[in-house]
């Protein structure tokens, strides 16, 4: 499975490069010609297609003992519904203050709501089915939950903007998918360990808080990066692509850390 994770990560890079190229090509042709309606359709198709492709790519790496397809899909759907119906509307209502308290509130409210939704999706759907019997299973289900969550965010984004422009829209969706899938994998790993091993009672809540902090740190860093490179007259695309690069780096770092942790633990057994 570890080799599978690595292959999936490599496949992901290929997918992102392909998507970026596609976005640039489409942007060159469609931005001036596509009206809002078709842009919404294109954006939605792209969001659903990317999430589905990624899930299939990731799922196929688990060749030894594949998880039930319907269960993986159910986890993703539950996370997407939870995000669209409860979590994201709740986050939009949250009173995010200015100043130093902003990060604290961001982690405790926005980050925690997002990661807790993924946690519940894995814990309430996958774990009771008795299919989480190794740590990597948790990563699979967690990734599915992350992709489901990202799908909800992306479709909301596309619809609320009346169809985002193709290139920045695709970059936004891809970055969202990348980070939430990786964070979902981390949450799934925490759930699997909590379920399969004797860990202290504080272990999972603290892990969830740390994941929420990484979540918010990424979005804050991306915003700061975008602000730094956006200058009068400059194209917003640079910020978009840098955001995607940061997302790729974050997702890769999380995946490497997860693989390292699993390797270390397996060696210790």
């Amino acid at each position: 499975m570890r080799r599978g994770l690595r292959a999936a990560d490599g496949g992901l890079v290929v997918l992102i490069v392909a998507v970026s190229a596609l976005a640039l090509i489409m942007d060159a042709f469609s931005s001036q010609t596509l009206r809002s309606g078709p842009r919404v359709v294109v954006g939605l198709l792209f969001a659903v297609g990317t999430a589905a492709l990624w899930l299939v790519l990731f799922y196929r790496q688990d060749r030894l003992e594949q998880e039930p397809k319907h269960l993986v899909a159910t986890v993703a759907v539950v996370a997407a519904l939870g995000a669209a119906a409860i979590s994201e509307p709740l986050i939009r209502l949250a009173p995010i203050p200015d100043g130093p308290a902003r990060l604290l509130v961001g982690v405790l409210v926005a980050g925690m709501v997002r990661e807790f939704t993924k946690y519940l999706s894995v814990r309430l759907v996958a774990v009771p089915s008795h299919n989480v019997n190794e740590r990597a299973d948790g990563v699979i289900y967690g990734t599915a939950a992350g992709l489901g969550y990202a799908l909800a965010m992306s479709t909301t984004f596309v619809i609320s903007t009346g169809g985002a422009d193709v290139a920045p829209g695709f970059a936004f969706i891809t970055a969202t998918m990348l980070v939430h899938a990786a964070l979902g994998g981390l949450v799934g790993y925490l759930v699997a360990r909590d379920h399969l091993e004797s860990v202290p009672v504080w272990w999972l809540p603290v892990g969830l808080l740390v994941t929420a902090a990484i979540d918010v740190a990424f979005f804050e860093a991306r915003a700061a990066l975008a602000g730094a490179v956006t200058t009068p007259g400059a194209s917003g695309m640079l910020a978009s692509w840098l955001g995607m690069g940061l997302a790729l780096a974050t997702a890769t770092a999380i995946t490497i850390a997860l693989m390292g942790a699993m390797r270390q633990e397996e060696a210790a057994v």
Partner: protein
Amino acid sequence: MTAVAVAAERPIPRKSLVITSAVALAAMSAGWLVGLVVGSATTRLNVGGLGLQLPAGWVVEEETDTQVLLVPRGLARDVAVVIYLADSQEASGGVDHFLLSAPDRLLLFTPDSYDDLEATFRYVRVDRLGGPDEVMGGRFVMLEGFAAAVFAPLDQLHEAQVDFERIVTSVE
């Protein structure tokens, strides 16, 4: 049967679920409370029928058909506002965007004035380039859900920029 497999077969205790949920809910509540206390001065501005949450200290002044948003100099330091002009895509095909860095004053036209000006320009949206947090810089993350348009007529953009500069000087 391995220890892991045995663990997978045993009944699933709910203690961890209950504790994790309790901690998560407590964390969210605490965060919400901090936000309410610290951010209690937050103003909400209705632009284009959609709520725009303003940070504390930002003031909205109503003019005839224009809402003028005054941003305190100190707070506006890292504000970047993209004004996205799509002046009739099918007509001129001219799609461009302009960035006004660190403005202290934004002109927010009401939907009524937007209707009047629609013939001249399509609309200006700050969220079309990839979402507020994607383009606007850190300051605008707090404007989560900012789906409203920031309207500015094409022929007044230049004036608006000049105006921004003047206001920046005067606020200082």
